[in-house]
């Protein structure tokens, strides 16, 4: 630089931007540390294994019983179940969009999938509770139709757009040589898709599933309104349960700050967020490996 004034100004701008970016990104670590601090007495007094494996949640009893196994199991049931429902539909729709949909239909379907991500989760929860749960009650003559299964169905609708968008991107990123070679050899489009394109895109598609799993685990409103909110250990997909986000949302406001109950909710939050971050890091590693291979 010729003019020292300009150089100074450039440096100020550069370091302001670097500083702001660093500080605001470190917020995530600050959040984790703060939640860890708030929940510390749980880890030191009750212990990690007792907290994770205890299936009784009675924080107000004396002595209090604090274990979140039921909620962890509920969380895994609803999220796993949602994936079970969403995977065939999501993959089917992604393959449809990437390979088979007439362009006029794709031009409608893609924004529709996009719009599904925009509908707030409380609306999904409300519609699920008002329509789906009512339907179960009438159809199967139940006193209350809420269950982990009902929550899974609604969660599936919520995560399908993510599966579709990410898997379609993975399918489209397969080099066009494979397509040309397949077509030149005269194999059917279906054979080409299932035997060549999908295997080549499988890591990206798997990444889409894992990401959807993380989303489903952390979703609050739909499970709060649909899973039934009972603290018992769920025995099957069709039982009621209370996943971790619902537990926190329901009890945080009524817990006394500084009490064991309050600290236990932060410990539950820490467990949830670490589960979700672990899932996301898996995806990241998976995608890094793909980039290297390609």
């Amino acid at each position: 630089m010729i003019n020292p004034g300009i150089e100074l100004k450039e440096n100020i701008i550069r370091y302001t931007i670097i500083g702001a970016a660093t500080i605001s990104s470190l917020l995530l670590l600050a959040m984790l540390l703060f939640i860890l601090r708030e929940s510390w007495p749980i880890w030191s007094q009750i212990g990690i294994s007792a907290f994770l494996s205890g299936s009784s949640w009675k924080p107000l009893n004396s002595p209090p019983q604090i274990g979140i196994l039921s909620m962890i199991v509920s969380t895994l049931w609803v999220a796993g179940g949602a994936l079970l429902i969403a995977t065939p539909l999501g993959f089917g729709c992604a393959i449809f969009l990437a390979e088979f949909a007439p362009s006029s239909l794709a031009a409608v379907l893609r924004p529709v999938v996009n719009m599904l991500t925009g509908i707030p989760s409380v609306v999904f929860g409300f519609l699920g509770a008002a329509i789906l749960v009512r339907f179960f009650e009438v159809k199967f003559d139940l006193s209350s139709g809420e269950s982990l299964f009902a929550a899974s169905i609604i969660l599936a609708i919520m995560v399908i757009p993510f599966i579709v968008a990410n898997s379609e991107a993975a399918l489209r990123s397969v080099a066009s040589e494979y397509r040309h070679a397949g077509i030149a050899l005269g194999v059917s489009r279906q054979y080409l898709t299932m035997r060549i394109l999908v295997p080549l895109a499988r890591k990206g598609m798997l990444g889409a599933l894992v990401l959807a799993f993380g989303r489903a685990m952390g979703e609050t409103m739909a499970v709060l309104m649909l899973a039934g909110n009972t603290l018992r250990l769920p025995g099957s997909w069709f039982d009621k349960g209370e996943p971790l986000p619902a537990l926190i949302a329901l009890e945080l406001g009524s817990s006394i700050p500084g009490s064991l109950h309050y600290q236990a909710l932060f410990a539950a939050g820490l467990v949830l967020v670490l589960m979700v971050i672990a899932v996301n890091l898996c995806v990241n590693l998976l995608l890094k490996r793909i980039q290297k291979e390609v």
Partner: protein
Amino acid sequence: MKQTMRDLLLMTWFWASGLLILMILLAIIIYLTGRGGTFISSEFILESPRGFPLGTEGGIFPAIKGTLWLILLALVISIVPGLLTAMYLSEYGRSGRLADFINLLVQSMAGVPSIITGLFVYALGVVTLGWGISLLAGGVALAIMVFPVIVVSSRNALQAVDENYRLVANSLGVAKSYTLFRIILPRAAPGILAGILLALGYAAGATAPIMVTAAAIIASSSGALFEPVMALPYHLYILFIEHISLNHAYATALVLVGLVLFLNILALSLNSLQERLNRQ
């Protein structure tokens, strides 16, 4: 013969999943419009909830106002850090170690469940700093939630600007900040704006973070920072869960979905404007 049979089954699967997803969205919109539409009137939009229990009569005006306050505050708090982080990632950091690390953090932040953001702001703002259940706490929680959305969309918009602008400006000896603010930023403006609108829509629909930090069953939503506010998603939740009024719940859901989809469609059209701009 077996081959064609299998191909037929596969095609059925692909078409069925595509059409089913199309139908789900159409069903949601049509059903919401049908059930909620008949209860939407100027009274419903412009009056406060009345009746006993509260919400059986009257309207949702304070909830609309509260939601607008919340998303405005979230935007005011998150926009500067979000844009600066995006500028760092796209212009200054590029592929350095720090940029990789920040990218990873931002990506992880996008995955953090919104209830966890609420939990954090509850402990820090509501309890420790003594804000109480308030508009400020809700705005901060939503700001943290939309921060990664703003970063990622602005970063992508900036990165998509033709590399030649940077090369030419650099070779002409134009200062980097001048290039960024006068050349790159204006060309990425529609994309960045689209990201901001998406973030606003996302914040407007978020329930979990505000139900523990900001929302009240009834409030005037005057915009005072340390007062609780009403908000559309929380109002919908209460109307349904407390069995107050199913009809008003449908109408509230319709207003909320309408607001969010309006913001999303605006964002989509800005994004396609950006794509046309990039192709020029």
